[in-house]
């Protein structure tokens, strides 16, 4: 009887351990595989009204940021940080293209984006597109974006505010918090770009 209980106890412990190990493994594996699929194909419209795809940026290091032009705080802060980072890249600056993808295509037309992104630096690209194309880009980059109505009848956007670094083959390399200071960003980029 005692032996039977012992065996049952051991069996239960082993089963529990196996379950925990499996959960941990699938979680870890999930994270690892997700990291590999940030980014991907997109077809959008640039600030000059031209249709562009991810292939147009092959060969270039990208800093990709999703935001919207009615955003007064986080987006200009992040774009300013990107601009200041480029200023510190020296010769490697010419290999980097900063891309601002709107999460608010209803208000951010190509014309709106053109003067907006130019304010942060000459090499900035602004991308907009149909709702479906923007949603696809958001999903590819695991970006969350949702309208939040304001009392004046307008809306703000809640959104993931992250800088993504993509390599010349369009593969995700790393990401940074939007408020990362330019010196840190520049240091990391310089070490990443050969």
């Amino acid at each position, binding site marked *: 009887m005692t032996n039977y209980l012992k065996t049952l106890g051991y069996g239960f412990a082993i089963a529990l351990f196996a379950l925990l190990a499996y959960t941990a493994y699938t979680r870890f594996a999930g994270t690892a595989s997700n990291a590999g699929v940030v980014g991907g194909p997109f077809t959008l419209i640039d600030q000059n009204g031209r249709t562009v795809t991810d292939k147009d940026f092959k060969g270039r290091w990208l800093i990709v940021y999703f935001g919207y*032009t*009615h*955003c*007064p*705080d*986080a987006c*200009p*802060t992040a*774009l*300013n*940080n990107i*601009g*200041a980072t480029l200023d510190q890249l020296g010769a490697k600056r010419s290999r980097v293209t900063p891309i601002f993808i709107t999460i608010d295509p209803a208000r951010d037309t190509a014309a*709106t*984006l*053109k*003067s*907006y*992104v*130019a*304010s*942060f*630096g000459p090499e900035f690209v602004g991308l907009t597109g149909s709702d479906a194309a923007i949603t696809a880009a958001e999903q590819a980059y695991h970006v*969350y974006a949702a309208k*939040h109505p*304001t*009392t*004046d009848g*307008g809306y*703000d956007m*809640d*959104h*993931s*505010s*992250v800088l993504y670094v993509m390599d010349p083959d369009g593969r995700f390399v790393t990401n940074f*918090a*939007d*408020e*990362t*200071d330019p010196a*840190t960003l520049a240091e990391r980029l310089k070490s990443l770009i050969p």
Partner: protein
Amino acid sequence: MNYLTLSRRLALIGLCLLPTAGWAADAVQVSDAWTRATPGQATSSAVYLTIVSAQADAVVAATTPIAAASLHLHQMLNGIGQMRAVERVAITAATPFHFAPMGYHIMVTGLKAPLKPGDHFPLTLNFEKAGPVTVAVTVRPLRESTPMTPMSGMDAMPGMSNMDMPK
């Protein structure tokens, strides 16, 4: 005789009032009010400033003749940035409180003209106890307008524990 007495009385009253006026002016100090030049056709901006109040107080409203203004908090929750209007921003006595990028800001919306570097405009903060305080907001160039200011607010902001000073 009567005239002299009156003038003396006025002088006395004035002398009494002076320090009071001085104290009232010093009760709340709002400094370093700035915003960014607006990029492109943007019609909204965020005003940042520093408040030092001798007494515990709260900002309950902001107004400016050039646009609609409201108190806002930007916060990150699990990597999602959210902007929310807030009705009241509590100010601790004798402790600098920073409205700063990626935290508390005064959101101005519906600007009728772009904000250009070097421009100034008035902004009035309404304090619960100290009443209205008007400051001149300086418009800084877009690309030089992110100074290393302390993080917005003080230390006990809900949900902002992940927003440390840049390292």
